[in-house]
């Protein structure tokens, strides 16, 4: 029973990994970037928003501020990349997000210090309990957020004119420009969207993963593992992967003897999927 309990406890983390994973998949398919700064942006926005708590702003207002800051800050990075590296390789564009990660992490430390931040508890308490097994409301909220994100994205991408334009851009950027699509604005829009989503997720999850900026930002790694399970293309697999990852990590807490191994789970999963996905050698024209 204790094992299942530990598994359930890991679901919250899994939900967060799933959200990050879906955001990374969206960014990778629509803007050709592996966004290393994805979580850092959300963390910065969430931490900045709670500065307004002493001013008497209600919780929903705090979340709103976080959303706006997350969108704005992410859009800024997106604007830089879209303006100066519009035709660069994915690797070059992703390298800029590494610098972005360094930037936002350092600014977070600077503004907010290195101690854990007390985020506003938006959702707390258990949802259901069977003896030792507890599924918290937060876990459910995060998983729902990930699923909602994937469903909404899928709907927008397949059923709306905006979505058609976004998919056209990710197919052939130059051809999209030549038929008059505003590639730059749309791509920056995607950046803003994922920035806001991450701000929301961190605002939710902050307390349970309570820590300083550095630990929060480390979440990019299991998030990337989840996205890798979807080969950076499929949101559904990223969600499943993220939840599974959280579950496995939770499971391992119940087995103290492999304490050390726990930290390496995301990496081992990444490796397994990389080995699996490159079974066949494929040359693309560009290389």
């Amino acid at each position, binding site marked *: 029973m204790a094992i299942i309990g530990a598994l359930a406890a890991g679901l919250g983390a899994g939900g967060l990994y799933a959200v990050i994973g879906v955001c990374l998949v969206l960014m990778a398919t629509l803007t050709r970037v592996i966004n290393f700064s994805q979580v850092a942006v959300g963390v910065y926005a969430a931490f900045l928003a709670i500065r307004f708590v002493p001013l008497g702003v209600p919780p929903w207002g705090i979340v709103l501020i976080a959303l706006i800051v997350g969108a704005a800050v992410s859009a800024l990075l997106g604007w830089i990349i879209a303006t100066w590296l519009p035709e660069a390789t994915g690797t070059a564009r992703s390298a800029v997000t590494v610098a972005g990660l360094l930037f936002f992490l350092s600014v977070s430390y600077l503004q907010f210090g290195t101690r854990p931040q007390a985020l506003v508890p938006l959702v707390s308490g258990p949802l259901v309990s069977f003896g030792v097994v507890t599924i918290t409301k937060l876990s459910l909220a995060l998983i729902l957020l990930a699923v909602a994100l994937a469903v909404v994205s899928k709907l927008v991408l397949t059923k709306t004119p905006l979505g058609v334009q976004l998919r*056209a851009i990710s*197919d052939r950027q*130059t051809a999209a420009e*030549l*038929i008059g699509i*505003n590639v730059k604005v749309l791509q920056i829009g995607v950046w803003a969207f994922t920035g806001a989503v991450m701000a929301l997720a961190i605002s939710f999850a902050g307390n349970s993963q309570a820590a300083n900026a550095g630990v929060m930002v480390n979440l990019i790694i299991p998030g990337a593992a989840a996205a890798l399970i979807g080969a950076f293309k499929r949101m559904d697999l990223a969600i499943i992967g993220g939840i599974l990852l959280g579950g496995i990590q939770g499971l391992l807490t119940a087995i103290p003897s492999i304490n050390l191994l726990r930290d390496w789970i995301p990496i081992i999963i990444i490796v397994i999927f990389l080995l699996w996905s490159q079974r066949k050698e494929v040359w693309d024209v560009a290389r």
Partner: protein
Amino acid sequence: MTLKLTDVTVRRGIGPVISDVNLEIVPGEVTTLVGPNGAGKTSLLESLSGVIAVSRGSVEMDGADLTKMSRRRRARAGLAHVEQGRMIFPSLTVRENLQLTARTGADLDEALALFPELEKRMASVSGLLSGGEQQMVVLARAFAAKPKYLLLDEMSLGLAPVVFLRLIPIIQQIAQDGAGVLLVEQFAHLALNIASDAMVITGGRVSYHGPAKTLLDDEGRLRSAYMG
């Protein structure tokens, strides 16, 4: 109101790939650019739509300096560039490809009317279509935008002659509807048959510029331009 090129030179890398082009595309007429293969003709079209820059000379569309406009603005101003190689959006269906440029449902229906073969393929993912069908999608997409000037780059590439013959009257139709068409082709005869104005590019330079009919009647001149 024309698309006017004056002394246009385009460079790729360090050397010029096509030099000193003077050309005027008139709405309602088909101008064709023929000549043996070498990057010059495609590079010229790319410099018009903004994929690459014009190194020297000027380009004016309806009086406005084209070189100062972004690719998107040029498209919005009525310039449509159909690139070489059937640039459909492979993950989009045929309908979605057309929806990208058709401003109204009527425009889309008009485009479809030209290509009845696409009717039954509307829901198919365009990446899975045959070469001929993909070329039709690309042309329909360009037509649906109701462009003022249409640049067509080597539409015949990799297409069976039967298929390309199918497309020729459509190009004529597009011109008749008021667009100025610049048709780049390595298959000279078919292009010369529907064009009023012709330009032959050999080795990056203009070796003939005049009525298409004259060139059609002068077999020897055409052959020497191609076969050396």
